[in-house]
């Protein structure tokens, strides 16, 4: 077997640069190789991936990359503007906040928490929503009705109230915030997954899978789910931003991240009071959030373009 596999692999690698040869008798590129080849030509994907990589590096190595201690208060240097505006200071490139803490350092450290919460909460929401959506759409009947009832409940209860109650009961920490936000943001995933599954389960390839003896679980996960990736990706990119802002609301109410920890959402919330005279306090974390969401969007679109092929040969 090894030999065939290797031969296969070799053939596909060999033909990467010589597409004309693969027309002759090769197997064509393996799906992963073909996707990688397309990825290399996809600028949006590369840019999105690059930005996310840089952000991740900053978040991971924040203690070493940040110029100052993000918690160190210097009340004599409060509300220092960024370096390019009048009164700016090269020592504090992006200025300081209302307690005189270095804004750049807080942004870099904030990336840790904001990215964790954004990606974490959006993923948890995705797992809950997609699972329920697949179950409801695939099985239908009373299961579908039960899930729909759950959605109605979720939509009827004000989510902020629910989050507050949960945080009060469980306690305050980053993990709790991630779970609580994730557990209240799954309705979009569910609605989209359910309707797409309803459509897909009628298609003949599902019937074919049935006829070859696939279990229901195999059909849902191996046949239906791969066809939902695009839709899920779109919602995911939206939900990341929603989750980060939701954390800001919670932090603003004193229910989110315990106080001195920096997060972009919290920084926006704190800056709001001074928005008229020190607008950079809101604009800078806002830009960071914007870039993060754009990068995730670019990545999501790129992954879709690269994995889907619409060219006939």
């Amino acid at each position, binding site marked *: *077997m*090894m030999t*065939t*596999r290797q031969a*296969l692999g070799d053939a*596909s690698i060999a033909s990467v640069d010589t597409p004309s040869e*693969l*027309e002759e*008798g*090769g*197997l*064509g*590129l*393996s*799906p992963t190789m*073909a996707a990688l080849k397309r990825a290399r030509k996809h600028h949006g994907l590369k840019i999105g991936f690059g930005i996310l990589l840089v952000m991740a590096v900053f978040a991971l190595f924040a203690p070493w990359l940040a110029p100052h201690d993000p918690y160190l208060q210097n009340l004599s240097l409060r509300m220092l503007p960024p370096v390019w505006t009048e009164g700016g200071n090269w020592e504090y490139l992006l200025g300081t906040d209302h307690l005189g803490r270095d804004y750049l350092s807080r942004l870099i450290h904030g990336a840790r928490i904001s990215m964790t919460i954004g990606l974490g909460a959006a993923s948890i929401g995705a797992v809950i929503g997609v699972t329920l959506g697949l179950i409801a759409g695939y099985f239908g009947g009373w299961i579908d009705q039960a899930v729909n009832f759950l959605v109605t409940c979720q939509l009827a209860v004000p989510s902020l109230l629910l989050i507050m109650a949960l945080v009060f009961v469980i306690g305050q920490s980053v993990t709790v915030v991630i779970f609580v936000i994730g557990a209240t943001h799954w309705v979009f995933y569910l609605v989209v997954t359910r309707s797409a599954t309803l459509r897909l389960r009628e*298609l*003949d*390839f599902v*019937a*074919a*899978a*049935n*006829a*070859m*003896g*696939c*279990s229901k679980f*195999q059909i849902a996960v191996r*046949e239906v789910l*791969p*066809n939902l*990736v695009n839709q899920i990706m779109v919602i995911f990119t939206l939900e990341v931003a929603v989750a980060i802002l939701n954390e800001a609301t919670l932090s603003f109410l004193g229910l989110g991240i315990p106080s001195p920890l920096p997060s972009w959402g919290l920084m926006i919330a704190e800056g709001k009071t001074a928005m008229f005279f020190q607008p950079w306090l809101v604009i800078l974390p806002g830009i960071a959030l914007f870039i993060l969401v754009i990068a995730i969007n670019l990545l999501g679109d790129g992954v879709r373009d690269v*994995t889907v*092929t*619409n*060219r*006939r*040969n």
Partner: protein
Amino acid sequence: MTTASILDIQDLSVEIPTDSATLKAVRGISLDLKRGETLGIVGESGSGKSMTALAIMNLLPPSARRAAACINFDGSDLTHSGERELATKVRGQRIGMIFQEPMTSLNPVYSIGRQLTETMTLHRNVSGAEAEQRAIQLLEKVGLPDPASRLKQYPHELSGGQRQRVMIAMALMNEPELLIADEPTTALDVTIQAQILYLLQDLQKELGMSMILITHDLGVVSRSADKIAVMYAGDIVETGTAEEVLRNPQHPYTQGLLECVPGYRGNDAHRLGSIPGIVPSMTGTIRGCAFASRCPRAVDACKTDLPPRKQLGPGRTYVCHDPDATRNQATFGAEEAANEVAVELPKTPGDTVLTVDSVSCTFSVRRGLFGKRKSLKALDTVNLDIRKGEVLALVGESGCGKTTLSRTIMGLQQPDTGSVSLGQHEISTLPAGQRARMIQPIFQDPYSSLNPRKTIGDIIGRPLVVNRIGSKSEQLAKVHKMMEHVGLPRRVFNSYPDQLSGGQRQRAAIGRALIMDPEIVICDEPTSALDVSVQAQILNLLLDLRDELDLTYLFVTHDLSVVQHMADRVAVMYLGEIVECGDRSQVLSNPKHPYTSALLDSALSISPDLSVPAPGLSGEFPNPMNRPSGCPFHPRCPVAEQQCREEVPKPEIIDTTFVKCWKARTFSHQAKHQ
């Protein structure tokens, strides 16, 4: 009849710019249509026939570019008319159009009446009442019962055939001089198709219209058209009267197409001809003849020089080098095989491998959460057995329960009563994996039967993975071998389904069905979504594989020419019951049930000297929710009597043929035609 041209097109081309290249959909064609004539435009999908129709009306997609020396419609050149003039004076007024999809070409939120009268009141100075009067007249003419009350109905209340009738009535509201019908019957059942074509033919005579009939079905065109234009790769390759083109085709492509039609070479031909290769890319300029790469007669000149248009007589042309060197060369492989196989003896019936024992299946349908439950009898005591090595065709119109029966046979649907047994085993008690190894399906639409997110290699090998058959290397070897068997090139192993042509996809679906070496394959209309040349390839492949792998087929289809070609035995279904079942030769040449006989009449073989037969069946396929009393066929039956209305017919066997009809012993198919 005057001989003036109503439509004269010179040098029409359509180009559609895409991201990567410009698609030349129509390449400088010329057409001429006389008043009162019917022109059939024939060709496979992608040949540019629909684009031609849209270009005449200037209804092309916004990005498309149209160029023409002239499009003369009744003396005025449409290329010079503005959009406003076209919209108010020509489209829907003097040129009517019928589209293929009756399900989507009516607006679901407006009533039939409003949609019908709108076309008339919009541009003509007529009152609403007058328009309504005309609408009622026309609905009556197109054969809709109770036309006055239809005006208030909405499209969803009508069946497909009824909607197509409404579409025709709508196109005729303003008495157009030219009617363009783009695949008007492709989505319909054969009996409805015959009714619609008959209706069109009748109306055309009555109103003196000219008609352009666009279709891929050579049978349809042979019966309805006076003249035929054969299109290939955006060009018209052959023109002439229907008789000339179909009886004495000159262009190798026309010959090839005809060889592909089951039944064209007589009913005993075992192998259909096939056109190798695929339609060339429509982008860029084609050097030489577009058909050269697929043509068995091609010589070097065909690949480099543009073929000349040869004139044989008035209106009789073809575009081909027609090389002398290969003049008598056997074409597309149909004839020789036919002679060779003619000696094959009819197969002796094998053992029964699958028995369907009085299976009934009832669904209960409920409208809304609190609606009343209604029962729908999909299958009514069906008995059937399939014998080793045979091809059993299951024939019937849509909604007759064919699909439910095939699902029940596959064990995907539990019957309410009765049982399906496979050899010694009852199918519902078999574990899924074991069942899957014995019985596999091939579906109608190769576009939905393959998961778009999986590669072809994955798809074909998936049954092995699911059922854990063999090691990884054995599985891979099997997949490669299977791809070779079904004629897929090795390079598509890692391709996704949307990178393949329709025929290739169906080959992949066949590969997936056969990889576990099943005994029985259920083919659910495996070729009805494919072009005729591809259909021929797939039918040939299925027959070859049966001989090679010793398979048994249950062939579900509505196409009687395919049945004639493929089947050993035939079972005819109507409203969930098998009404006739027996040997192919018996059932098709001497049908005992009036329904079978009507189906046979509706099947349009290629015979240019015949016209569309008057429909033998009255009315439409009934709604299975309110089954007629007695014999379910009696409301449409030409020979029904009192007994048929009251008593359900008893099954009986008349010289080896199973039949369920009170009149079976006295009914004669031949007598009906004398």
